């Protein structure tokens, strides 16, 4: 489903002016606080009106200022998971979830509440009131409530921002399952690179009310100029991979990627499953000669595509082309100089660690970028 946004809205001194188009399963709005992410989501949800412009979801116009069209939020069928959950305190969990379902037109109901409850693991909470739930439970119920209304688009505004790391780890797998199984597109707002890198199929980068970049996640994440110093830790390349075989003796799995085979600690998925491998730039070493007898299992041939050095920083980010796939490596500027790394230099990328998301069966995605 296509999400098409081209809007302007002015609030005081802040102007949001955003235009992009996305067809991904999970489009992340990424940017620092105050960049206009939430405003944009509220415009899509109908909680705010744009001064000018239009928004389309799946070919249906929700707002078109020039044509004088504005669909009120209660007719948009756009689910919204708020940062603060916003469960109704006077209703039980079961009633909160029934609330959205009640208002959905019968012929538009696709959500199976029983399945939702199972998938979110909230069956044991149904009789409780929101006041008695933990933060993580509240967010899961909020997700269930939004989906029970059978929306055609789900907005999630920093649903993990108010949770601690343990709770985040509790929710993230559910968001991944939603992306892969719910079958409706998700807009996910976050200012955390790690979350975005793990979840997004497409990314819209916002800065000071403008779209700084947008496109498929792998491309946008690899754009060197976007990495702010505090986020470099998370700079990573994404590789779509297929599980080829398991090595029972050593507890390993072998993956096939465009960049070459990867051997990783056993991945709990059936043979042939699609997974997404995330390789952080700081987990990649570079060598000019093929390294022999080293501990790393994965050594991939590649060519340097570009190098970027931040002003005044000791390190540099090297973008590699490995069989058409992109890999990022963080090395020191001195390394770049002594090894003579320049576009076209053949190198060996030594991958020290790979992490995974459950895949969302990446298929061709026309029209993005």
């Amino acid at each position: 489903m296509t999400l098409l946004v081209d809007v302007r809205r002015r609030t005081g001194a802040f102007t949001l002016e955003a235009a992009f188009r996305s067809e991904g399963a999970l489009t992340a709005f990424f940017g620092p606080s105050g960049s206009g992410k939430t405003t944009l989501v509220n415009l899509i949800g109908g909680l705010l009106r744009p001064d000018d412009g239009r928004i389309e979801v799946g070919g249906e116009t929700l707002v078109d200022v020039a044509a004088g069209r504005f669909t009120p939020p209660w007719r948009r069928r756009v689910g919204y998971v708020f940062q603060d959950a916003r469960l109704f305190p006077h209703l039980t969990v079961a009633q909160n979830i029934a609330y959205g379902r009640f208002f959905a037109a019968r012929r538009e109901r696709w959500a199976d509440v029983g399945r939702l409850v199972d998938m979110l693991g909230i069956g044991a909470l149904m009789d409780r009131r929101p006041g008695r739930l933990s933060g993580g439970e509240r967010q899961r119920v909020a997700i269930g409530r939004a989906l029970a209304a059978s929306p055609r688009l789900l907005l999630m505004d920093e649903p993990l921002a108010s949770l601690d790391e343990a709770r985040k780890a509790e929710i993230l797998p559910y968001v991944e399952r939603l992306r892969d199984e719910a079958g409706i597109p998700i807009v996910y707002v976050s200012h955390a690179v790690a979350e975005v890198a793990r979840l997004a199929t497409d990314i819209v980068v916002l800065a000071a009310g403008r779209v700084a970049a947008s496109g498929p996640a792998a491309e946008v994440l690899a754009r060197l100029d976007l990495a702010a110093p505090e986020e470099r830790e998370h700079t990573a390349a994404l590789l779509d991979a297929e599980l080829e075989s398991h090595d029972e003796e050593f507890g390993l799995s072998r993956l096939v990627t465009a960049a070459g085979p990867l051997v990783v600690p056993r991945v709990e998925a059936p043979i042939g499953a699609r997974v997404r491998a995330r390789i952080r730039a700081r987990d990649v070493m570079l060598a000019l000669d093929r390294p022999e007898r080293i501990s790393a299992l994965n050594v991939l041939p590649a060519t340097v595509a570009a190098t970027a050095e931040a002003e005044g920083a000791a390190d540099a980010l090297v973008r590699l082309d490995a069989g058409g796939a992109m890999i990022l490596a963080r090395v020191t500027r001195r390394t770049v100089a002594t090894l003579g790394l320049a576009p076209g230099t053949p190198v060996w990328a030594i991958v020290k660690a790979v992490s995974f998301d459950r895949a969302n069966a990446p298929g061709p995605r026309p029209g993005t970028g």
Partner: protein
Amino acid sequence: MDWLRLSPEEWTAVRLSLRVSIWATVVSLPFGILVAHVLARREFPGKAVLNGLVHLPLILPPVVTGYLLLITFGRRGPVGAFLEAHFGIVFAFRWTGAALACGIMAFPLLVRAVRLSIEAIDPRLEAAAATLGARPAWVFLTVTLPLTLPGIVAGMILTFAKAMGEFGATITFVSNIPGETQTLPTAIYTFLQIPGGETGAARLTLVSIAIAMAALVASELFARRIRRGMDLA
């Protein structure tokens, strides 16, 4: 303890007072909720004027309010004449007029209590309801109203208590007719005007205190139940 027994006339005053207060409370409630909601959630020209009008009975001398009611809702007053001609409703010198006077006098208290309660509701909950498909009227009925319940109960108790004690506007508008418009306060006042009426006045005073306390306890119990229901306690 024989002096505690109420005379038939006193019983009449007590019953009338209860009837007047309950009607004043029940009838003014929907209007009070509506005005409170408008004042809490809407911006419109003339909002300050509406707010001032609602609060007028609180700051005007009750006799003035009673007099204004008399010239508007009396049988020759513009509204009074219209209501009598078209609906057969008469306020002047009837218990209904006493209920009207009490309702008007208590209205600012009702609106204040409900308005504070509505303002305490996070409007983002109402926005959330809208994204779930609820149109504004449904949002009001299913989210705003239930969450306003504590304020509504407080406002009803205040209205009831005020109505039980209203004196100035009532006596000015509908006079002090035993069996028709003589409520507890006007009955007490009448007792104090006649020699040897102190015992009757004392009895009715005790009744007043008992009713007030009962209303207060009832509201407290109800509020506690609501809080427990929402797990806020």
